[in-house]
């Protein structure tokens, strides 16, 4: 039974500056967003930085709690923003690391550094189509094998690719034309 939780050893700005030191030239920016430290790095530094974050004594990020992506189709060449979220349980710290890859690009896997990367990266691969180099088991996880397309991309229609265009029409009468229910006025009727 525990009574008290560890108090954070470094504040958010301190984490950002320490991670910037660890990332070195690969760091592309760092700031505190709504209380959370966020660091942007180049895509080839993802794995070395993860290793450093886990082993650094001041930080000790033991857990990779989340990997996800955001699709920005307008940024041609760097469409996918990969978001990694780390947590240190011994120091009670949180960190978000972001990187950009292009469509068809790839990034080194974290599955060998953090085992949680195995399933989390499979999910990103499944729903966004980002490849993770060196992943031991990079298959689709939520969608069936052989599924075409990546649903969380912005250009993927929410109804699915094979949804008929006119399906939103009010189709209460099925294939019947409502006009068939009305008799054509007889030619002499209006004159009488």
């Amino acid at each position, binding site marked *: 039974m*525990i009574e008290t939780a560890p108090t954070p050893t470094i504040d958010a700005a301190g984490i950002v500056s320490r991670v910037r030191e660890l990332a070195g030239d690969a760091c592309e920016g760092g700031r505190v967003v709504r209380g959370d430290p966020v660091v942007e790095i180049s895509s080839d530094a993802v794995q070395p930085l993860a290793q450093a974050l886990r082993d650094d004594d001041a930080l000790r990020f033991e*857990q990779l*709690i*989340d990997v996800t992506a*955001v699709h920005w189709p307008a940024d041609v060449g760097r469409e996918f923003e990969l978001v990694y979220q780390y947590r240190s349980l011994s120091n009670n710290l949180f960190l978000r690391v972001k990187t950009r890859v292009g469509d068809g690009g790839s990034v080194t896997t974290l599955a060998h550094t953090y085992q*949680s990367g195995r*399933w989390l990266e499979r999910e990103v691969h499944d729903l966004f189509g980002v490849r993770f180099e060196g992943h031991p088991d990079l298959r689709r996880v939520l969608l069936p094998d052989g599924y075409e397309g990546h649903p969380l991309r912005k250009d993927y229609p929410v109804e699915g690719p094979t949804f008929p265009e006119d399906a939103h029409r009010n189709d209460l009468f099925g294939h019947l034309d409502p006009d068939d229910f009305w008799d054509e006025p007889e030619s002499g009727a209006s004159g009488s």
Partner: protein
Amino acid sequence: MSVETGTASMFGDVEQVSENQMVLNMGPQHPSTHGVMRLLIEVDGETVTKCTPDVGFLHRGVEKLIETHDYRGGITLTDRMDYTAGPSNNMGYLMAIEKLMGMEDEIPLRAKLIRTAVAELSRLASHHIWIGTHALDIGAMSAFLWSLREREKILYLFEQACGARLTTSFMRVGGTGPHDVPESWVENVDAFLDSYTLDELNSLLTGNEIFQSRTRGVGVIPAEQALSYGLTGPSLRGSGVDWDLRKARPYAAYDMIDFEIPVFPEGDVYARYLVRLNEMYQATRIVRQCMEHLRDLPADAPSNADRPDLVPPDVGRVPFDMEAMINHFKLVMHGVQPPQGEAYFGIEGPKGELGYYFVSDGSGMPYRCHVRSPSFVNLGIMEDAAVGGLIADTVALIGSIDIVLGEVDR
């Protein structure tokens, strides 16, 4: 000999790959997979040599759907993920939006207390499902029936609070929403706590020799492995890691409540059982304290933030008051519009860290909403933890990491 596990099921339920090894297909309709999950188990005799979970049968694309709804519309999608603890999911979703808008400090105390109480009640309800089905998998039938009888009382409290039992869609951005809990709710919760007892379940299972022989030393997850696999919640605390977001990063009203976090170091199925059972005792303590604090509040204490741009006006005023009608119209048509940016917020759900990651482009609909579901991440450890055990131990292990397939597949 390695097997192409992706195609094994095509050839029937059992496939022999060598003299001693077989591939066994468990699920997706197996009763102890707690939903539609398929496990491909490679066995050597009775011993599991490889376990590959196959999920996604319940994938509904919730993250994509949330992108097409306004922020309020997404609430109804969240409690369909972990349907055993709907209010807890609502709460995580709303608190992430509130963090995105930078208005965590504006939530009134009454709303915080009700949220905390409802979250703990949903933890109780979720653990009741878990304890019942887990014992049922191992062969104890009466625990299931007794457990669901207690859970029914909790669902009745949810129904009184918001009108729904499972898919509550309770609470809104900024507080409890236009419909606060009824006045008699506090008394009803107190009456429930007085009549509620866990000692029956405790005496039925904890000292039970058969239950212990099925769970002690089975499915051991060492602490380093649990950390590396990103385990959170009771599954992590059953491996001796004292981590709980309610203590580490207190949210809602947890900082004014006195409770303990049970931690057991053994890492086996029985330790995870003890963690959850003790958590249930703690949850009743938390709810009782919330009710005491609620009763101390003045009768006219607000339950929503004073933010007309977020909180709809009193429904009774809308047809008679021009300003209220305009306010209501604006909120229904345009919804809540957080500023551009991103936010992640995680709560300690019944199954682990339930996190929501939002990206806003300034419009009324989220640009991206990612759900960090504890069940999905916790399930990853099946690939490792089941290996070396018996097939029957796999059943106990699935029960002990407490997954809900609606949340795994989203």
